[in-house]
């Protein structure tokens, strides 16, 4: 590969081309050269992208002194598994995990339930003012969350919900986010309407159609919505930062910052904890990759 690259830019190549033009200008050679280049570039960039992950894993398994070696050791020796239990017991990790799980779980339920019902109404039911309302949904897509941040804080303060998990969960039961409504509605309108009509004639109610036809036929897009919601709530930082003050209600995102408060940073412990926090998202991504990619395709290209 290196040789090809050099040869291309020197007189060597030109002389060769004159000698055997058919060889160097032929489609097959060009194709092969570009393929080798492609692999080389992908390998290079792929390594760059992967290195931080490997670095994190490597640091999380090192003993304290080995962290500060030059040149760095990539494979820890000895491998210190005990960094993990040490890191996880340093802060009440299990409690933070539980809090994060509660928020993520109920927020996803709220999003799916609420957004799908609203989207069903927009996609399938006829009522006066529907199109204006849908237009409002679309405009709120671009609305600024920084503008509503402070007034929302004041609302939850009036409700005495500060320092509870409720501000992180309850709003999702009110529509489930404009983007999700839009995404689901766009999918619902692709389901043949004849199915609804047939069910109506057989005496099925509107909610029956939603539950027996629309929802079962939309599993992939619902999965995509759920996965994106999971990713967002699991990683959310700003809202817990604003609303939650007591340690007993911290989410993982807040809890991880406790490592920073110490006089010196315990890097191997911090990297171990970071690895553990990333793990659920990575696992969900691994097992649901298909839906992930479909969801992105749907939002990015067709949305």
């Amino acid at each position: 590969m290196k040789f090809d690259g050099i040869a291309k830019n020197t007189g060597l190549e030109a002389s060769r081309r004159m000698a055997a033009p058919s060889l160097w200008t032929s489609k097959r050679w060009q194709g092969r050269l570009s393929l080798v280049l492609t692999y080389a570039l992908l390998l290079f960039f792929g390594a760059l992208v992967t290195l931080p992950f490997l670095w994190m894993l490597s640091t999380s398994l090192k003993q304290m002194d080995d962290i500060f070696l030059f040149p760095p050791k990539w494979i820890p020796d000895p491998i210190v598994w005990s960094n993990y239990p040490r890191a996880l017991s340093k802060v009440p990790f299990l409690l933070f995990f539980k809090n994060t799980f509660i928020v993520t779980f109920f927020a996803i339920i709220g999003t799916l339930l609420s957004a799908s019902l609203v989207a069903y109404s927009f996609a399938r039911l006829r009522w006066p003012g529907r199109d204006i309302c849908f237009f409002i949904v679309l405009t709120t897509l671009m609305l600024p969350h920084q503008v509503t941040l402070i007034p929302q804080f004041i609302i939850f303060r009036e409700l005495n919900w500060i320092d509870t998990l409720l501000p992180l969960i309850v709003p999702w039961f009110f529509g489930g986010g404009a983007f999700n409504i839009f995404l689901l509605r766009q999918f619902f309108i692709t389901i043949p309407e004849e199915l609804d009509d047939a069910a109506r004639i057989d005496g099925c109610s509107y909610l029956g159609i939603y539950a027996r036809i629309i929802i079962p036929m939309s599993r992939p897009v619902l999965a995509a919505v759920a996965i994106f919601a999971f990713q967002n709530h699991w990683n959310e930082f700003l809202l817990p930062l604003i609303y939650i003050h007591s340690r007993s209600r911290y989410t993982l995102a807040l809890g991880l910052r406790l490592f920073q408060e110490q006089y010196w940073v315990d890097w191997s412990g911090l990297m171990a904890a970071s690895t553990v926090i990333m793990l659920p998202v990575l696992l969900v991504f691994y097992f649901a990759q298909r839906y992930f990619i479909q969801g992105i395709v749907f939002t990015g290209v067709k949305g």
Partner: protein
Amino acid sequence: MAVRASIASRLNLPAGRLARREALVGVLLVMPWFVGFLIFLLGPMLVSVYLSFTDWDLLTPAKFVGLKNYRKMIFEDPLIKQALKVTTIYAFSAVPLRVVGGLLLAVLLNQNIKLKSFIRTVFYLPSVVSGVAVAMLWLWIFNSDFGLLNLILNLFGIPGPAWLSDTRYVLAAFVIMSLWGVGGSMVIYLAGLQGVPTDLYEAAEVDGANSLTRFWYITLPMISPVIFFNLVMSIIAALQIFNQAYIMTQGGPQNASMFMMLYLYFNAFEYFKMGYASALAWLIFFYILALTLLVFRSSSHWVFYTGSVRGK
């Protein structure tokens, strides 16, 4: 309509009543969204406008001060200029790199190569795990003495800077970090590239166009709507950068990474200047809006919609 009439007769209902029932159910189902829209969006927006004309520390009643907050913002507060400056520099470096880098990777990956979906996963992983854990990881990577980045630079004999505590390098650090998530836009490009009809390429090849020409005259115009989408999304995201900066630098050193959202957060939730912070929120909003509109206006010159792409 005919269907509705037949459903009505089947259910022994007059068609008008059926339509009314459908409307009732429809409105009821939309209610949660509508209530949410009023109390979490429209109401707060109006309140925010009002608050931006007041002084309020949450403890004593809000005091109406007219345009004072805006006057302070525009004429007196040097930090707001700093915030606008660093956010703009960051956005104008990170966004083009992301948009172009993502496209480059997508084009590389969109060939007939082995392990395609595996490689795609590798590049996409960083965008999956965004959040505090990632910020912690990069905090460690940027560590001036033992961080990965400076260790690598050392191997090449380059003395690495103190990335996060040097005013000259801190923005570059955030740009590098954002580039790590380039796979997010790559995946969207890949989807767009798959939608380009292959007969266009075949026709061009027959006409003797080389791969660079094909890219320039077919691929680029055909996926320009996707580039546009990625551009707008990246701009909005970049101008609202917060998590990384809050965790890694808190706006330092010497406010060199005091991004707009960070400054808003400090004013609202650390100094409890709710009025001034509300005014800042509107400034950020209109700044994002202005840049987005600029991109939208420019799009008629470079975004190319074919019937088939638009119809999809």
